[in-house]
């Protein structure tokens, strides 16, 4: 079966979404993953966007979370306050899974989407938090899309935009954040998860044909690779839905 790494990443993420999840999506591949989940394994999951759209029909893939495509056939079209209430509400908030991305990630799943270099004289400036810091602060579960590169899996973030497990198992509590934090990281090579006890990242799975050592070679820090298994590639059925239904124009794929 021929498939691209982006297709693999999208399907791996879609499989993590449960039928009773409320899914918070950002721009790009995270949107596609949520659309794929809805078409493949979690038809009843609800997709929502920080812009205030809840349960949009998503007949076409949005190019941004403010795309008019998120406004069509919603359950409710509000604004930012509504969206952030959904993820903090004691009832609905507990069902939310966030999907995030970043320029840098550390071993505890903290994210940088603000700058490379000194914050006060940056070498590279990125978009900034948007709603990323908010969702990372509030929701009980999140997954993160990353490219596996040494400059992205870093020992020390240049800027901590969105809190993961901060400095370890007690990090979020000490900081005053609700319990939660990232559950997994999906990359172009592998799936990483966070150890229940240490909250440090470990290698949970590698894509077919990829050696665990090759994954470590793309990271500044070392992680446990003893639990790594091979991740099941996308099936013909999953690929067909992804290509024909979710992203026929290949805007994201």
């Amino acid at each position, binding site marked *: 079966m021929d498939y691209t790494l982006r297709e693999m990443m999208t399907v791996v993420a879609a499989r993590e979404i449960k039928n009773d999840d409320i899914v918070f999506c950002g721009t790009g591949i995270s949107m596609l993953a949520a659309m794929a989940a809805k078409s493949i394994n979690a038809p009843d999951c609800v997709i929502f966007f920080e812009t205030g759209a809840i349960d949009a029909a998503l007949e076409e893939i949005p190019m941004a979370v403010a795309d008019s495509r998120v406004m069509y056939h919603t359950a409710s*079209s509000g604004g930012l306050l509504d969206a952030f209430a959904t993820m903090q509400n004691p009832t609905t908030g507990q069902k939310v899974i966030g999907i995030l991305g970043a320029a840098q990630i550390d071993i505890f799943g903290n994210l940088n989407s603000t700058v490379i270099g000194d914050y006060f004289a940056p070498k590279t400036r990125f978009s900034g938090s948007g709603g990323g810091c908010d969702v990372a602060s509030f929701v009980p579960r999140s997954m993160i899309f990353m490219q596996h590169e040494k400059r992205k899996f870093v020992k020390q973030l240049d800027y901590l935009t969105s809190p993961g497990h901060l400095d370890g198992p007690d990090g979020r509590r000490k900081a005053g954040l609700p319990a939660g934090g990232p559950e997994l990281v999906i990359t172009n090579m592998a799936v990483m998860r966070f150890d229940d006890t240490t909250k440090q990242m470990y290698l949970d799975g590698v894509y077919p044909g990829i050696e665990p050592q090759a994954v470590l070679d793309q990271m500044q820090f070392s992680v446990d690779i003893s639990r790594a298994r091979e991740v099941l590639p996308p099936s013909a059925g999953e690929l067909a839905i992804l290509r024909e239904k979710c992203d026929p124009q290949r805007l994201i794929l």
Partner: protein
Amino acid sequence: MSKLAKDKVMPLEAAVKTYVHDGCHMAIGGFTINRNPMAAVYTIIRAGIKNLHLYVHSNGQAVDELIGAGCVAKVEIAYGGSGKFAATCIRFRKAIEAGLLQVEDYSNYQMTLRFLAGAMGVPFLPTRSSLGSDIVDKWGFSEGLRRSDPKLPNRKLTVLDNPFEDWGNTEKVVLVPAITPDVTLLHVQQADRAGNCRIDGLSFADVEQAKASKHLVVTCEALMEGDALHENAHHNQIPFIHVDAVVHVPFGAYPTACYQHYDYDPAYLKAYAVAAKDDEKYKDYLDTYVYGVADHQTLIERIGTERMDGIKADPRTGYAANLDRR
């Protein structure tokens, strides 16, 4: 003009001249590539207004063009990006990397709360967002800058132990300060002469931005005559008492989208992204599409009927279905 006046319709140039000045503190509505008040932004650029202090949550095209044209000195922002067209706004990025723009970073929710606090007339609002992050620890504006501008609070934010102890299962909160812009610019689908506004689709944080502001300039796709918006008034989000100027500008959000009217123009946004990467090409872009047109209608005419028809919203979905966005 009184905010209670029944007819606030005026030309865009006059509204900008009256309410937007060098160095003023300005908020912009819309979100990344949707309902940005582009006609007003281009008018500000053509008017040569400088040293603006901007307040936005997630903005894309409007912020980037204002920065690219050299109108902005400082920005308080959560996100500068135009979706897939520019993951990070290009002139925004260049200006920061060149040290030409001072930035204070917040999150989207924090910026929204700051506008809401301004609208409510309270000095700050609490949130748990950003605890443990560099948004709390690193302040873009120096203490000196904050002291030198009476329109700025003396702190970016502050962390407070919950005074109600463990009420709400919360130990601490981040307090974010209210924003009171001198002027806010919005583009809406419908407004009447007094300024009552009806937004279709998502309102983003437009309502909070509108109500936080000392002055509010609204551009609209459709200018509704008489009492039309008093029918089904539960569909209105902003009552006229907040509004200072109403300007009828069809396609006023172009090249960003306006739900139920037109989509974003992928050709424009892609060409913009190419031009924005190169200073010479960017100058050509400004000369052709901004300084080279007298007003927004001239820009729309220059783009041409064929392209404008191509982004016309399909009435069922509110966007241009099957638009080639590659």
